[in-house]
């Protein structure tokens, strides 16, 4: 079936199998392999992307369901070679080790901060409950999200002046 959607700002039109999962479309058809498949029960969140700005697990979205919508992956988050504020905070706070959960974690954090720009630590933990990490114990991931939120506050304050 023909599916039209936008991925990282670029319009796409592809003929896909109706059962093709969005994560496999991104990885195999478009070669965008930042999002990973870490489980088969929508539990781990390694495949998280933004769909019209909201974080979704792309292993549980059919490509067809994304038709007409805007998909953003980790590849499309920064501006060229520069990291997005969330990506930069993950680096600054050492919020990643093996990196497998990282693109999904960054997208989930980005979605979280879009909904709640000033989360508490508890809200960050609850917001990321559906994204598993085996390496970091979540400690530095939480710090990274809080740091990104703080940086965002500074930016918006400066923009408002």
């Amino acid at each position, binding site marked *: 079936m023909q599916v039209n959607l936008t991925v990282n700002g670029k319009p796409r039109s592809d003929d896909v*199998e109706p*059962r093709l999962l969005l994560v*496999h479309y991104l*990885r195999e058809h478009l*070669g965008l*392999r*930042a*999002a*990973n*498949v*870490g*489980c*088969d*029960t929508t*539990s*781990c969140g*390694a495949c998280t992307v933004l769909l019209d700005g909201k974080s979704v697990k792309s292993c549980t979205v059919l490509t067809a369901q994304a038709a007409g919508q805007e998909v953003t992956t*980790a*590849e499309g*988050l*920064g501006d060229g070679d520069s*990291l997005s504020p969330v*990506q930069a905070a*993950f*680096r*600054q706070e*050492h919020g*990643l*080790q*093996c*990196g*497998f*959960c*990282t*693109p999904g974690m*960054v997208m989930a954090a980005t979605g979280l901060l879009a909904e709640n720009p000033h989360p508490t*630590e*508890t809200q*960050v*933990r*609850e917001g*990321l*409950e*559906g*994204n*598993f*990490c*085996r*390496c*970091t*114990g*979540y*400690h*530095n*991931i*939480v*710090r990274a999200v809080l740091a990104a939120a703080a940086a965002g506050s500074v930016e918006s304050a400066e923009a408002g002046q």
Partner: protein
Amino acid sequence: MLTGRAAGPKLLYQEVITAEPPPVLPGPQPGTTIGHRVTICATLRRLRGAGSSVSILGTRVLRTEDPRFLTTGGVYTEDVVDERLAGACHLFFVRSPIAHARITGIDVSAALEAPGVVAVFTGADVADLPSRKGPAMINQEMAQRPLATDTVRFVGEPVAVVVTAEPYQGEDAIELVSVDYDPLPAVVGFEAAMAGEVLLFEAAGTNVAAEFGKRGEQQADLFDGCDVVVTRTIANQRVAPAPMETRSAAAVWGEDGRLTAWIPNQGAQGTRASLARQLGVDAAQIRIITPDVGGAFGAKFGADPEHAVAAWAARELGRPVRWSETRFENLIAMTHGRAQEQTITIGGKRDGTVLAYRLDILQDAGAYPRIGAILPSLTILMAPGPYAIPRAEAFASTVVTNTTPIGAYRGAGRPEATAALERAIDLFAAEIEVDPAQVRRTNLLPPFTEPHQTAFGALYDSGDYVAALDTALTAAGYDELRREQAARRARGDTLQLGIGLASYVEITGDGDESGPPTENATVEVHPDGTATILTGTSPHGQGHETAWAMLASDELGIPLDKITLKWGDTDLIPQGGGTGGSRSLQQGGAAVQQASQELIEVGRGRAAAELEASPADLIFDVERSAFAVTGDPEASVPLASLAAAERLLVRSVFSAPGATYPFGTHVAVVEVDTETGKVFLRRVVTVDDAGVVLNPLLAEGQRHGGIAQGAAQAFLEEVVYDADGNPLTASFADYPFLSATEVPSFELADMATPTTYNPLGAKGIGEAGTIGATPAVQNAVIDAVAHLGVRHIDMPTSPQRVWAAVQAAAQEAGGPPDGQRPSRSENA
């Protein structure tokens, strides 16, 4: 170089904690690193007598590898795009749904008719492949076929493999392979295994795979003279390593008859050797390439039967193949960890002195003995831990059961030792009604700077265990916590406070039967001023690209961003021990530093010729990455220029005199709802002394991750089988994988007692977390309900177990739990 056992470690540096302890409960504490970091780099300079320029060693250098992980993502095996893999087929395994059965027939005809199916292979097709046998000390009859032939022995065992053109076709086609099974009684649990009424391997004549020590020769007088003796059988339950990246492979045979295989692993050279054995080919015929690896935790050493089948299928079909397992497969067919039952007996005096300790271990090997089958040897080695126990003995039996094979999992044998001992100490403390911190302080070995030989054969290199305990107690605000606990008990609060301790010493960077630990590194400086490092270690999250570049940069004066690290390609790096057992920095890092220093000396000779000066008159100016003539700074030649004239590289092998023994103390604070049994982990405060720290950012990350995994085993995670051997935790919907909401931020206190076994002064940090946190959290949970008469709760301390323990203690006391009862009960 300050190596050599004879010289003995010297306590050169120890950090002093000056920060105030954070406020106590209730409520989670913000994640803070306690204590100040002082001149670790200066210590390193002192250790190796280097020059005066400011060193980046010991500083929080951000990871150079991060930008690609954060944007395009790592290139894991499934992501590899390579022309050699063009047109690759996809493998899907048909796995046994029954724990123990005879295979009476396999019909692949329907699968062969399915769309996209290239081939279907069964055990008969791979008859030419050797069986996979366990480690040398294991009963060699307990061997696994790459694909099961006549008998399956665990749910998840590969029985057949379907090869298809496209991945989705394979998922469809495996459903069409029809296997007839004649079920056999399943052996699940130690009792059934030891009874031996049903044997997994008839030819072995027993379910016992190996024995360690002589159980029949227990010292009858071991506990003579003890006022108090406490004994208890406890579980160190089976858990799943569950790295986020599951197992995977891509394989292709070249026209030269050599196999190239991309496999996520912890050491390509070991993976090559394992694959060679399983394929029955010479290791020289195999090239392993290691893409990014999405976590391993001990479970990605070597190669699994599926990897061998993938390589075999690629040869059979004359086409490249790819395989990536699902999470469901990963949870039933990747090795599990732990799986011990321990009977601990501890005795001593009422003043808190421990006189004797016995550890009796049953180790579940799963269906086919792997490395996990021999890990009790490490548990026994570390049985007495950090304590001066006058009399101790330990032994173990490993048995096979109809469950997933047991392998290494972060800590691999040592967490089991610490968990047993720290539970024993707490049981003893409860029995004599002495504060568990005081019992530990009474029995910990005094500080030592000369190696300490234990009765179990370990040679602890350096340690100050009491300081670690006291530092952790201070950082946690232990006395205040005890006061808060007493207040809650007095009030009979529903939400009770528990404080758990674990003091540990562990072994890292050990050698093997071939000798003391060694590792190699090659450092090359290029004419354009860049450098390349080849390492025999193999990062999968630890940050070697940054850390190894720091070490080379510090010697060579080449910026971090101009240094490239390569690893995991066996054609490029034929030797190497990989990354595991917390060995990388102390051996692999030391090798990088050594090679860099030797490269400077090679360069010095060439520079002397170039500058027509005596080598002795040259200084190496790290700031300029150049040699200069003393007293004539204008007469200089950069390293890069020397490399332009002739390749400038050094391969060096670092050899350590032995293993190192990091140590520490963890303090866990939990709240337990005495009505529901629910455990809330509120704080984990740790001192993990792994010697001199190269990059605190990376070391703290290792501690955080380990603490979380260790805590998860204590109160959450468990692989569960039913009585028929059916796995009940085969998905992330069922296996209680730790999430962000279940742990607090962690509080790390610093302490650094250097080792002299390597010039960095570093011990291993990778496994400290799982060694200390597990018993600390378990002890905390039990401590929270100890006043209700509870003495022990097995891990994981689930609400059901905690609730049941509280109820049982109340029944024994003859009334409902009311929080007011005296805190003694003999058998709860």
